């Protein structure tokens, strides 16, 4: 895009736009055992994460849904791609700093909140069991 008059620097680099247009596991997870949704009050970005945790506390499947800026949605996609197959302990040890590194591009403090939304939601989701037993039989 060298001819483009818009100089995105790192903020909207190809890798991020790929995740924005072709996200990893965007949607609902009917077999979810755990789920959480939150938003950034400042900008209204919303992210929901559904998790299916197996008996060993491993993420057997995960999906995200939501609405918001490129950073909030692309970072959710990257996070789930990273965390599929990992354990609850792995999630707990995955710090905010790790999340910002996974995203890659430098972000101002205001935009870091967009990037950390999905990370916050995931940290809560592993402690938020879905309050129904239907999915066990529905499968």
């Amino acid at each position, binding site marked *: 895009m060298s001819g483009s008059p818009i100089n995105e620097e790192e903020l*909207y680099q190809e890798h991020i736009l*790929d995740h924005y*247009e*072709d*996200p990893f596991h965007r949607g609902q997870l009917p077999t979810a055992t755990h789920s959480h949704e939150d938003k950034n009050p400042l900008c*209204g970005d919303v992210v929901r994460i559904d998790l299916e945790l197996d008996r060993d506390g491993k993420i057997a499947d995960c999906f995200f849904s939501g609405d*918001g800026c490129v950073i909030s949605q692309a970072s959710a*996609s990257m996070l789930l791609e*990273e965390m599929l197959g990992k354990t609850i302990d792995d999630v707990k040890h995955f710090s905010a700093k790790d999340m910002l590194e996974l995203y890659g591009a430098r972000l101002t403090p205001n*935009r870091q909140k967009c990037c950390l939304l999905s990370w916050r939601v995931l940290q809560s989701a592993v402690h938020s069991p879905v309050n129904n037993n239907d999915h066990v039989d529905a499968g």
Partner: protein
Amino acid sequence: MTMLMQDENVSVDRTKLLPAKLREDFPILEQLVHGDRPLVFLDNAASTQRPRQVIDVLRRVYEHDYANVHRGIHTLSERSTEQYEEAREKVRAFIGAKHAHEIIFTPGTTASINTVARSWGDANVRAGDEIVLTTMEHHSNLVPWQQLAERTGAVLRHIPITDDGLLVLEELDRLLTAKTKMVAVASVSNVLGTINSVAEIARRAHAAGALVLVDAAQSVPHRATDVTALGADFLAFSGHKMLGPTGIGVLYGREELLDAMPPFLGGGSMINRVYADRFTPAELPAKFEAGTPPIAPAIALGAAIDYLNALGIDAVERHEHELARYAYERLQEIDGLKILGPSPEHRAGLVSFTVTQPHPHDVAQLLDQQGIAVRAGHHCTQPLHDRLGITASTRASFYLYNTPAEVDLLVDTVRQIQDRFKPQGRHRRPKST
């Protein structure tokens, strides 16, 4: 290239514009941002910039004249007091108030509205009484009334808006009842740009026995204000949105209303006599100016008014309206771009919009990289955004120093951003493990 897509029929009537030379009065506008991008400042509804004439007055006050007002029997205190009261008189004349003591200096519009909701509200509003607001109010003209309703058990009603962002005034007659105590309405919406028919609203409110508070933060800086013609019982605005400093605002109130209201903040200056266990309040306006006021900011607000008067506020309005009309028509050319609010004839000098993609925060960030400052988000109007069914929008708001070339850059850059984020058949690369 994108420039070729410009509709030849959309053009600017330059006879309606102010002389471009006045930009030289604004040192902050001369800078480059992000390396080589001239600053294009289109966030004026949030806060404007200041001309050298205002900055010079601030410097002069602090270098030569500053002392506390209304207290010292010494030269500087007398100078400061005189200039502070001159500023009050300038504000009075600017908004057509009868008496200078009807002008209360506050920290800003928010403080002004809170003063009315607290002082007048607590003294006059009872459980079951009704306050009429509108769907398009800024949070600063919603939350103080919500707090009053919580304290008193009053009920809030809202004049709805059309899909075009105009108030549905037919609903007002239904909303106004014997229980209505106050109608609080913005003269101009900070998101839709809608110019509301305040005089007509006030006429109907008064006929129903209600008072009217006008949130004039978005109109006093941009168009002529006459509190008598408007029928405003109270009117609030801020200095920093009209070339003045932050920390200074105005509450206008009709004399007999302010006289009957209890003081809001207690402390120095607002008293006549203090005993160990009680006080008697001062006369207007001191009664509502407890503590040391924003002295230099008030004097500088007077200088801002001088600047606006020298240009002529009608010329300022004409300039902004022409820019907003031009921006409105050019932005319409962009596929998928949706402008919030009414057509240009009902609109003040701002344009808010959404694009199909990306999100308004991304649009604002990418505009910033071209040097263009806009606002993105809910602009402190969440109920309005709920009504419009969106979470956020991008707003370009103009002032007397903006130019058609800046509008062109805005439009062309928005078009490029939207093109950039159109689905392009991208695919994530498999994660390397």
